[in-house]
């Protein structure tokens, strides 16, 4: 018993510093039933002026269509290693968990979503939510394909 407590203590000691730097944030995105092919999404962080900071998640694997995610790409080839998944179908939801550095929370940063659908719209920053603890769990609607977006942490 003593031994187990010691082990747990050790694990905690190793794990806590990591927790102190980054926090898992769950992103919930639900799309409208727009009735087209799967939507490409970019969920990313910007500063308060809208300047790109980092990519949280990209839905849609074909890099050649990423340029249609207008604000997010803005003529740049974004690094999407490890953050891409399948595109999201009409009326479907995407729920992913990402690690966000503590330093970015409540520091004026924003979560933004760009979306694009083949033969359809290309919505730049259709969702803009400040990354503040107070906003967690509050769904917001998007202007284009996003029906609602919320984040939990």
């Amino acid at each position: 018993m003593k031994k187990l407590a010691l082990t747990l203590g050790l694990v905690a000691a190793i794990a806590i510093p990591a927790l102190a730097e980054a926090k898992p944030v769950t992103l919930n995105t639900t799309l409208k039933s727009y009735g087209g092919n799967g939507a490409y999404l970019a969920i990313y962080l910007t500063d308060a002026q809208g300047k790109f900071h980092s990519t949280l998640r990209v839905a849609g694997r074909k890099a050649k269509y990423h340029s249609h995610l207008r604000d997010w790409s803005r003529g740049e080839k974004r690094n999407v290693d490890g953050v891409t998944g399948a595109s999201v179908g009409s009326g479907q939801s995407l729920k992913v968990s990402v690690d966000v550095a503590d330093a970015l929370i409540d520091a004026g940063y924003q979560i933004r979503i760009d979306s694009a659908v083949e033969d359809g719209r290309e919505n730049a920053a259709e969702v803009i939510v400040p990354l503040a603890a107070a906003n967690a769990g509050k769904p917001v609607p998007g202007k284009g394909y996003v029906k609602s977006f919320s984040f939990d942490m």
Partner: protein
Amino acid sequence: MLRQFHALPGLLAAVLVVVLAVTGAILSLDPVLERAATMPPTAGQISVAALAEAVTANHREVDRIVKTASGSVIAYYFDGDRAAADLVDPKTGQTIGPYTPSDFLRFVTNLHRSFLMGDAGRAAAGIGALAMVVLSISGAMMLAARLGGWSAILRPVSGTPAQRWHTELGRFAVLGLMLSALTGCYMSLATFGILPDGATVQPSVLIDVNGGARAPVAQLAALKAVDLTDLRELTFPRAGDLTDFYVLTTAQGIGHVDAATGLMLGYQPHGLGRQVYETIYMLHTGQGLWPLAMILGLSALTVPTLSAFGAVIWWKRRRALPRIANNVGAQSADTIILVGSEGNSTWGFAGTLHAALTKSGHQVHTAPMNRLAPAYAKAARMLILTATFGDGAAPASAARFLARLDAVKTPLPVAVLGFGDRSFPHFCRFAEDVATALHARGWPVLSKLACIDRQSAQEFARWGTDLGNTLGAELTLTHVASRPKTIALELIERVDYGAEVQAPTVILRFAAPKAGPNANLWQRLRAPRLPEFLPGDLVGILPPGSDLPRFYSLASGNRDGVLEICVRKHPGGLCSSFLHDLEPGVRIEAFIRKNPAFRPACGKAPLILIGAGTGIGPLAGFIRHNTGRRPVHLYWGGRDPASDFLYEGDMKKCLADRRLTNLDTIFSRVSGGGYVQDRIASDANELRALIQRGAQVLVCGGRDMATGVARSLEAIIGPMGLELQTLKSTGRYLEDVY
């Protein structure tokens, strides 16, 4: 080889290709309908700035204007928080109505490019397109080879209905299909990033955006300078952000346009890849090119039928090849047996030989003579077994043998064995021709040319013993002729002629036996029906006590509901006596052998039918089937109009309703009479005029008559600078002679 190239992808990719084609045909309607709805403007008619101005005047917050490949203009806008899109008249910028892409077309598009199965489906669609390329090219090459060169590619084709439809449709559609398939391959490779699709990356964001108040869009110089025909899309700056700018994509490149000054801030021209891709896209979809879309759509529509007929042809060819046990591959066999056979009887002998050689330890490959390969890796000898067709011609499975012989680089020791009937003048003629051709090309003789008379098992066994001695091993050939698969036919009617002129002749009409009065529904449904046949085809009849079938030309088609033959009784003739003794209600065993070599060509050209005695049978069949009322002239010779005027009533009926244009008869046993060859000689002018008009001559009857007719006709067409041989080789002089 070419045939395999055609058949293999055809069979393997049939489903893929058919789905691609049907969906493609549906999609091809889109550009046509879209074009019918709006006329796109011509160059110089309206600038991007003017269009954008008109669109912004009607919409509160325009997000993006897109011009599709087919020329439609779509405006995406926000109405408050509601995202919406309108279809816009490209000439005026006025709203036509809300833009609602069709769910059905989207579904069909996805089916077309990915079978609704993501990347795996996209790859399959690419493979389907590749299969279509291979099919188009190999099909065209086969057709050219068959018709005698590319210049002859539009000539009429003969063959079974399936073959004719397959060829006609293929010929109609091949260019469209090839275009669709090649561009489809390109697009597939572009999808997977193997070829460029010309996606141009935007120029990097510039910092020197003016940021001042926005000018009206109509005054922006960079947009005024671009014609609508060049527009691809125009993205508007975000409403609340004065540092944002227009993104203009044209046919030539992508640029950023300052919303305040109207200046082009940065510009990135498209690479060559983009133009190539746009062109390929247009050629594949027909968008912006609606006549092409129609052609491609019609071509694609032929594909299901082409596939179905192709499968039928393949299946029939496969079934026609007798199965041979332990048939070794051509390149691993030490002994090659090649078979020339019109029916299938020679194959039976080949099978016996194959089994005996295999038993004595040889690796044997048996194939039709037409499959002669340019080289055999391990072969030490070749054995050729061939029948002769008609008057010394090659049988069906050997028709291309002599032409292929020149391609063979390494001659093998060869033995030729002919099959025939000694009572015919050109007994084993084709086998002789083959042996001569081989000798002339320096093929060593394994054993001397031998001929088997009337499928004699004894002569075949003797030849086997000789061959065994040559090979240094005993070879026992016990050939048991396999009875062909027969059907039962019931005699329903007989009409007798000619007894008075010592030429007893009977017209026999058979039908499939009817189910008995007590048969249940199942038995009635399964009641035998007549197999498929046309006038001029042959019926093989097995007289009791014989496994050797006798063949009679058919005077009817199965659609007539009866199988009709015309039989003259030969003194001592086993089969003709048997048939002459038949009474209605009696059943016989028979089978059909197709005879496509003796059929009127398609079309409206006149027919000259010449026959004597029972030779009128198939000719009467052709006439009765002449529902198209093409000109038909019948010359027929009998003995006495009072006794053996076969089909007299029928022919007069056909004359009356113009299925027969002219009936010329001559009888030998009346005063001033003569033979049919005399009759045509006296009608030379008329015949010359008909032949001038492209008439086809079909001759049916005894050998002596046919020789006489050939001589008479030779003399008639000589003055026209024509030779009978020319008519024969172009299929305009056909003989069915016995």
